[in-house]
């Protein structure tokens, strides 16, 4: 007995027109399956990838166009915000004068000392204190508390009037510390006061070396 089909047997099998038709049909279906497996499936993946890429680029393009369209509005908003920040200087937001916060502090306080008669002679700048900014959303110390020690002399009433004038004129300025020591003249006291002002803080990169120490 032979294992395979002989030529005669094959001829006899395909000699029949019905069998031949079914064999062709099966062959065509196999071709269709192969096309599906090797062409359509691969092409479908390529199409999905191409569509995803196109969608991603279009989304990016739309986002960019949206931002560019808002440019004039954003510039206007920036100008307004800068104006608001500038206006805060009138309330006691401290900016350096000749690279010195102490100089600016002196410039701001001189009119008040003249008005109240409380004489301030020395101004010394401290290192900044940090604000407890929320840890989420605003990670950087954009603003800080600038302390300036002012040393002067005057009567209690003059000192009190000076503090009131300071708080009325510059609502953002705060008396952070003060020491009143009597002198030989009972009417005159030596006063050392630390006035605190909001001022520009440090960025994250500027703070990193300081933060490494853990405590300050």
């Amino acid at each position, binding site marked *: 007995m032979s294992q395979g089909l002989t030529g005669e047997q094959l001829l006899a099998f395909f000699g029949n027109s019905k069998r031949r*038709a079914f064999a062709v*049909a099966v062959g065509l279906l196999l071709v269709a399956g192969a096309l599906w497996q090797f062409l359509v499936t691969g092409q479908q993946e390529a*199409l999905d990838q191409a569509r995803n890429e196109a969608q991603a680029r279009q989304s990016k393009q739309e986002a960019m166009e949206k931002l560019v369209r808002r440019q004039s509005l954003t510039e206007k908003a920036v100008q307004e915000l800068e104006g608001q920040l500038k206006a805060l200087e009138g309330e006691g937001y401290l900016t350096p004068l000749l690279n010195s916060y102490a100089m600016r502090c002196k410039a701001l306080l001189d009119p008040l000392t003249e008005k109240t008669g409380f004489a301030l002679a020395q101004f010394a700048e401290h290192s900044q204190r*940090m604000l407890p900014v929320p840890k989420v959303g605003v990670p950087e110390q954009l603003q800080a508390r600038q302390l300036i020690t002012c040393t002067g002399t005057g009567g209690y009433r003059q000192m009190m009037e000076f503090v009131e004038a300071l708080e009325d004129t510059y609502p953002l300025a705060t008396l952070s510390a003060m020491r009143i020591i009597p002198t030989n003249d009972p009417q005159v006291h030596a006063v050392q006061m630390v006035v605190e002002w909001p001022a520009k803080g440090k960025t994250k990169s500027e703070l990193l070396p300081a933060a490494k120490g*853990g*405590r300050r």
Partner: protein
Amino acid sequence: MNKAIHLNLLRAEERVSSSRVRLHVMAPVFAAVVVAGVALWWAWLWTQTLMAQSQTRAADDAIGQLQAAFKRATDTTGREQELKQQLAQVELYRHGAARYGVFLRKLAEQMPATIQLTALEFVEPPPQVIAAPAPRGKKAPPSFGPSSPEEPVRLRLSGRTPDAASLDKLLGVLRAPAFRETIETATVPKGAFRQEQDARGGSGQEFFRFDVECTLKRRVFE
């Protein structure tokens, strides 16, 4: 009983269906349609892929043209965000600002006549804790500000008085409703009320020296 015998002398391949639709004709046609359908489907996918790739290239070109304007817009938006945050932090500071001018005026007005203040000190705030100590063997996480929004404020009054009653009167004044908005507690620390002799002018008059520690309302930055 008679049994009907049905005799079929046709061979299987000689049988012909009475139906007009013959299976051996339709099967290859159906298979050919399937092949054609698959080929058409592939062609449609291929066309769609080309279209999607074309869209990607068009978007890339548009993105390239937008780059300069986009960078300007990004910078402006970043500046806007930073300014907003700066203003928000100033407001945070404003909330924590304290005012003592009126308090100092009231203190002068209500100070008992028999009390002579020798020093008045708003104690400097304690050093800020910037970052919690790291666990053993671990690197401390960078922290960018104190953990607590509150900061205590202390006031120390030092002075002299001829008698203890005057000091009681001063404490009564400091604890009175007039100062409740500013002062939380006013106490004389242990050993801070002591008798001394006035050496000035050789009078030898006795008086009491005292310190009063006041806890003022905390500054809250929030």
